[in-house]
C-alpha cells in the first residue's frame, strides 16, 4: 500500500513535538526555582511554601510534566507566573509584532539580496561584483546588536529622521493589529527591519552568487545559448528555477529563525514582540511562558519545513508529476 509522503512527515512531526516537550520541560526545570524571583522579599517561609504549592512546584518532576501535558492537550498552556494571564494568550498577543517584523526583514533580504547575488554571480570578476561580495562579508560579520545601536545613533539621534524604539500606531486588519498600514508604523518599522535583514541579506547574496556561478557553467545554459535564446530569457526561464530549491529551503529555515529568535533586534529597539517576552521570561524563570513559547517555535519550524518541502515538490516538474500521480493512484 502506498503511503503518502505528507502523512509520513506529519507523523514524524508529532514525534518531534513530543520529544521537544520533554527536552524543554527538563531544561527549564534545571534553571532554578521561580518562586525565589517572584516572592516578595518581605515574605516569610510560610508564604513561600504556600506559593510553591499554589504554583504546583512541590510535586515531583514527573507529576509536573504529566499535569503540563494533560493541560496542554486540552489547549491550556499554563498561567504565566509574572503576568498571571494564560501563557498562550501572552504569546499570541505579541505574535503579530514579531511576524510583521520578520516578514518585512525577509522581504528586504529577498528583494535586495537575490538581485545583488544574481548580478555578482553573472559577472563575478567585475568591480561591482567584488564590491557586493565584500559588502556581504561585512553584513554577516557585524554583530546585530552593534549595527542596531549604530542605526539608532545615526538615524535617530544625529539625523532625527526615524524614531529610536518602540512600535508605531497600529490598525486592525482582519482582526490583527498591524503597524505596516500606517506611516507612523512604517517609520518605526524601518530600522529594526533593516537591522534584522542584514544578516539574512548577506547570506542570500552569497548563496545566490555561488549557485548562479555554478549554474552558468552547466551544459543546458550552453545549449540554450546555442539555440539562440537571449541572456535575459536564459536567466529567468532556466537558471532561476534551477537555483531556486536550495534558496527556498534556506529562506524557509531562516524565516523560522527570524520569527523565533529576533531577540537581539527586539531588545535593542524595544520592539514589543515575542523575543523580548522570551528573554524576560528566562530572566524571571516564568516557566509556563518559556515552555509554551518553545513548543510554539517547534511547531512553527515543522510547519514551515512542511510548506517548503511542498513548494519544492511543486516547482520541480519531475517531483510534481510523481506526487500528482501518487495522488491519483491513491484515489
Amino acid at each position, binding site marked *: 500500500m502506498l503511503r503518502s509522503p505528507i502523512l509520513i512527515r506529519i507523523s514524524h512531526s508529532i514525534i518531534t513535538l513530543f520529544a521537544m516537550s520533554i527536552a524543554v520541560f527538563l531544561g527549564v526545570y534545571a534553571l532554578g*526555582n521561580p518562586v525565589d524571583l517572584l516572592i516578595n*522579599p518581605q515574605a516569610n517561609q*510560610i*508564604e513561600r511554601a504556600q506559593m510553591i504549592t499554589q504554583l504546583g512546584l512541590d510535586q515531583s518532576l514527573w507529576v509536573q510534566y504529566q499535569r503540563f501535558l494533560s493541560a496542554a492537550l486540552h489547549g491550556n498552556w499554563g498561567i504565566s507566573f509574572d503576568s498571571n494571564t494564560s501563557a498562550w494568550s501572552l504569546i499570541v498577543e505579541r505574535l503579530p509584532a514579531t511576524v510583521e517584523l520578520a516578514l518585512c526583514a525577509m522581504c528586504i533580504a529577498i528583494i535586495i539580496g537575490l538581485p545583488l547575488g544574481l548580478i555578482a554571480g553573472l559577472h563575478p570578476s567585475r568591480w561591482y561584483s567584488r564590491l557586493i561580495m565584500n559588502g556581504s562579508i561585512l553584513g554577516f560579520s557585524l554583530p546585530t546588536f552593534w549595527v542596531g545601536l549604530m542605526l539608532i545613533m545615526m538615524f535617530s*539621534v544625529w539625523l532625527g529622521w526615524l524614531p529610536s524604539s*518602540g512600535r508605531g500606531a497600529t490598525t486592525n486588519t482582519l482582526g490583527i493589529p498591524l503597524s505596516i498600514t500606517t506611516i507612523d508604523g512604517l517609520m518605526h518599522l524601518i530600522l529594526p527591519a533593516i537591522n534584522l535583514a542584514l544578516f539574512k541579506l548577506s547570506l542570500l547574496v552569497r548563496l545566490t552568487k555561488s549557485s548562479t556561478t555554478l549554474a552558468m557553467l552547466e551544459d543546458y545554459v550552453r545549449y540554450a545559448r546555442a539555440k539562440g535564446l537571449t541572456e535575459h530569457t536564459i536567466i529567468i526561464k532556466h537558471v532561476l528555477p534551477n537555483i531556486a530549491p536550495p534558496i527556498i529551503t534556506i529562506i524557509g529555515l531562516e524565516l523560522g529563525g527570524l520569527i523565533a529568535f529576533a531577540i537581539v533586534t527586539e*531588545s535593542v*529597539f524595544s520592539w514589543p*514582540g515575542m523575543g523580548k517576552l522570551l528573554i524576560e521570561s528566562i530572566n524571571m524563570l516564568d516557566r509556563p511562558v518559556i515552555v509554551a513559547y518553545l513548543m510554539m517555535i517547534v511547531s512553527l519550524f515543522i510547519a514551515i519545513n512542511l510548506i517548503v518541502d511542498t513548494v519544492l515538490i511543486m516547482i520541480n516538474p519531475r517531483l510534481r508529476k510523481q506526487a500528482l500521480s501518487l495522488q491519483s493512484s491513491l484515489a
Partner: protein
Amino acid sequence: MKIISQISRQLTGIVTISCLCLTSLSLSAATELRIGLSGEVTSLDPHHLASQPNLTVARHVFESLVDVDTQNRLIPGLALSWRAIDPHTWEFKLRKGVAFHDGSPFTAQDAEFSLQRPLQLKSPSGGFAAYVRAIASIRIIDTHTLQIKTKSPYGALPEDLNSILIVSKKHAVNANTDDFDSGRAMVGTGPYQFVRYQRGDRLELSRFSGWWGTPPAHDKVTLRIVPSDPSRTAGLLAAELDMIEHVPSADIKKLSKNNQLKVIQATSWRTILLHLDQYRSPSPYITDLNGSLLSKNPLQDKRVRQALSFAINRLAITERIMEGLGMPAINFVSPPSFGYQTTLKPETFDPIAAKQLLTEAGYPNGFQLTLSGPNNRYINDDQILQAVAQFWTRVGVRTTVEALPMSTLLNKVRKEETTITLLGWGSFAADLAIRSLIATTNSEKGYGAWNWGRYSNSKVDQLMTTALSTIDRTKREALAREASILAIQDVAIIPLHHQVVSWGLRSGLSYTPRTDEFTLAQHVTIR
C-alpha cells in the same frame, strides 16, 4: 566630491534643525510627558507582583493609605492621620472628598477591601500577603474611619501599608489580572487615569481632573517600556523621551554635559552588602591555599570578618566602578531612612590592619574562598564582585568570583552552596531590614528570610523584636539604631555601599529625586 560633501553636510544641518524645530513646536503645544522606564511591566494588577516596574506604573493610577516622601519618610496619603489607640489597635482617619476615576467616592469600604484582597487572590501572587500578614482584623467605624487590629503589637504597620494600593471595591471585586490589563478594573484615586495599555510597549495615561491633590503639570503621560540601556539613552538624546530612569553609569558624564538635558541623582534606599557563611563549621567551600578543607570556619571569627571589611576600598569602588553611582555604607539603610545611625562611619580602607587581624586570628598565609553574586541585578554588580575579590586576594584571602544570573544564584543560595554572597536590599526602616537580613531564621515568624549567612545574635533579635512592637516612633527608632550598632560592630554582614539612583531629563523639566527610586509623572514639573 568636495562640493557634494559640503552640500550633504548643509542638508543634514537643515534637516536636523527643521526636525528639532518641529519637535519643540509640538512639545510646547500639548503638555505631554513621555517617560522611558527601565523594567518590564508584567501586570497592571496592583496586588499581583511586587516588582518595581509594576508598582511604578500602578502608583500613577492608584494610591495607598500611607504615602512616602522623597526622603523615604512616611507622609499622609489616602489616610490623613493614624495613631495607635492601644498596642493592638490602629485607627486610620481617611481623607474626605476623594473620588475614584469613575466619580464614585472613596470610602473605608474600599480601603478594607483593598487590604483584604492580597490574601484572597486565588492566583499565585508575588507576596503582597507579607504586608498585610500582621493584620488580625479590620473594622469600619464610619465611612472615613478604619480600625485595624494587629495580631501582636506591631509598630511598622504604617510602613507595610504603604505597599498596598487602594482599588475601587465596585470594580475590583471578582476582578482578575485580565480585567486590570484591559483597563476595566483600572479605576483608582490617583492623579492619572488609564487610557491604553500595549503590553511590552507602553501605557498611556491622561490627567484625572477630579484628583484631590495639586494638579500635575502634564495632561498626557506615556510610560514607554525601554529596558535596553542604550536605547533608553538614545531615546532621550533623540528627544523622543522627555525623561528616563536609571541612566547607565557610563553615560552620566555625557548627558550632564549636554545643554538640552540634565541628570539628577539621589542616594537610593538600596544597600549593597555581603552575606558571610557563619553557621557551618567547617564551611564546605573555604579551603587553605593548597585546596584542602579548613577544619574550622574562619568567618565565624569576628577578627576575620573585620579584616575582610578593612581590606575593601569602598571609595575606589564607588568612584571608579560605580562611576559615582554609590555611597560607601555602614548602616543597613541609607541616610534619610528610619533608624539610620549617623555615628557609625563606613570602614576605612586599611589592608595592613586587615593582614594583622588575619594573622592574629591564626591565618597568617590567608586561605581560599569563593565570592558569589548576581551579574544582572544591581548596578555594575559583576564588576563589584571582581573588585572585592581582588582586594581580598591582595591581603592573602585568595578569592574566586562566581557571578550568575539572579535566578541561578538564588537557586544556589537555597541549596546552601555559597560562602559569601552579594545582595542588595532596600528598606524604609532599619528594624525591618534587620528582621529580613540578620534576624535568627524562624520560618513561623518570618524572621531572617534573607539571612543567607544564618547570623544569629539573640541580643540583636531581642532589640529588633522590641523595636517592631514599639508603637512610639521615637522609642522605636532608638531601639532600631541600637540593634544596628550592635549588629554592625559584630560584623553580621559587610555593607559595601548605598546605590545612587539617577534620572535623565530635558532641561525644561524638574523632578525631585526619590530615595525609593520611583519615577512618578505627577511630581514632574515644568520650569
